[in-house]
């Protein structure tokens, strides 16, 4: 079994709140400098910068998981991670049909740029990506079966956009196997109130919106191989 260092929640410049320096090339370079083995690119409601990051990572010994930070209709953030870019892009297309069609005002929210592996802007997302989608929290598990992904409620210990803040508690009927905590020291307290968490794998990521905030190699996941398929398998 390999112990791989990971940071599975990183925003690129496609997220309006993501810094303009979060270019695919910079993300890959920073992950390499920080000795990370696995990263995931998880923009709000879009996967459109994942392809460039995956291509750029080929020259490094870095595994890139294509992903998305989905905002459900309850405004709960959920990481959706995939082994294959093709599944992520199918999901991206599906989510774009479920997004509120509110144009992005760049002056207020920031740019939403799609960048290729040569740092060229090849498009922009016209609609504001940080909005809620018309996808309920309870249907994400079923969707992930259809799109071959895994769903991970994001930063459940935060007091906004988390399953615990917005939906109050975790139902015993929940169907996720992994949750993300912003701060692992909150786990014991949360487990007392939400026994469902005792059966979950717990991960912690940077949720970086700026290059310097990408995690050092401080969190590790056990994987059979250094591949996106095996990382996703370890999260199932």
């Amino acid at each position, binding site marked *: 079994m390999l112990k791989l260092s990971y940071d599975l929640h990183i925003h690129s410049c496609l997220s309006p709140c993501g810094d303009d320096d979060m270019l695919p090339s910079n993300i890959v370079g920073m992950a390499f400098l920080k000795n990370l083995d696995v990263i995931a690119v998880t923009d709000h409601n879009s996967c459109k910068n994942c392809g460039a990051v995956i291509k750029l990572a080929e020259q490094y010994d870095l595994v890139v998981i294509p992903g998305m930070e989905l905002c459900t209709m*309850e405004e709960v953030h959920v990481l959706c991670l995939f082994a294959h870019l093709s599944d992520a892009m199918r999901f991206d297309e599906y989510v774009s049909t479920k997004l509120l069609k509110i144009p992005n005002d760049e002056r207020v929210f920031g740019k939403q740029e799609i960048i290729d592996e040569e740092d060229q802007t090849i498009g922009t997302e016209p609609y504001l990506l940080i909005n809620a989608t018309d996808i*309920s*929290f*309870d249907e994400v598990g079923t969707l992930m079966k259809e799109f071959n992904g895994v769903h991970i409620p994001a930063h459940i210990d935060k*007091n906004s956009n988390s399953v*615990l*803040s*917005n*939906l*109050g*508690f975790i*139902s015993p009927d929940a169907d996720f196997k992994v949750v993300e905590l912003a701060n692992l020291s909150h786990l014991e307290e949360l487990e007392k109130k939400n026994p469902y968490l005792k059966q979950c794998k717990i991960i912690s990521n940077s949720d970086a919106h700026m290059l310097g905030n990408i995690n050092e190699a401080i969190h590790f996941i056990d994987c059979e191989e250094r591949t996106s398929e095996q990382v996703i398998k370890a999260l199932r």
Partner: protein
Amino acid sequence: MKVIDLIQAGTFEVVNEGDNTQREICAPYCCDLLSIAMGKMRADSAWVTVMGNINTLAVATLADASCIILAEGSHLDEASLNKAREQGITVMASEQPIFEAALFVYNKLNA
């Protein structure tokens, strides 16, 4: 005012008529974050929210709300509707914004 009086006022669509429509409503209560509602909502409140999730029903039971009013056209999915029927919770719905729905309840209580 009892829950049945609010139903019979006809302003809100009745999604599910619960087991105890004779219970009193003490006040309207407005909150969409269930983590706050579950700790702060008074018993016997008419809870006005846009959060049409299955957890809304659990929080209404826990906080002992009189009824739920889903505002802004939000609705329950099939599983949540079944849960409301099973647990006998009165759920109403409205296209009105939260404030206006709550104000209607308030005005009726203070009429």
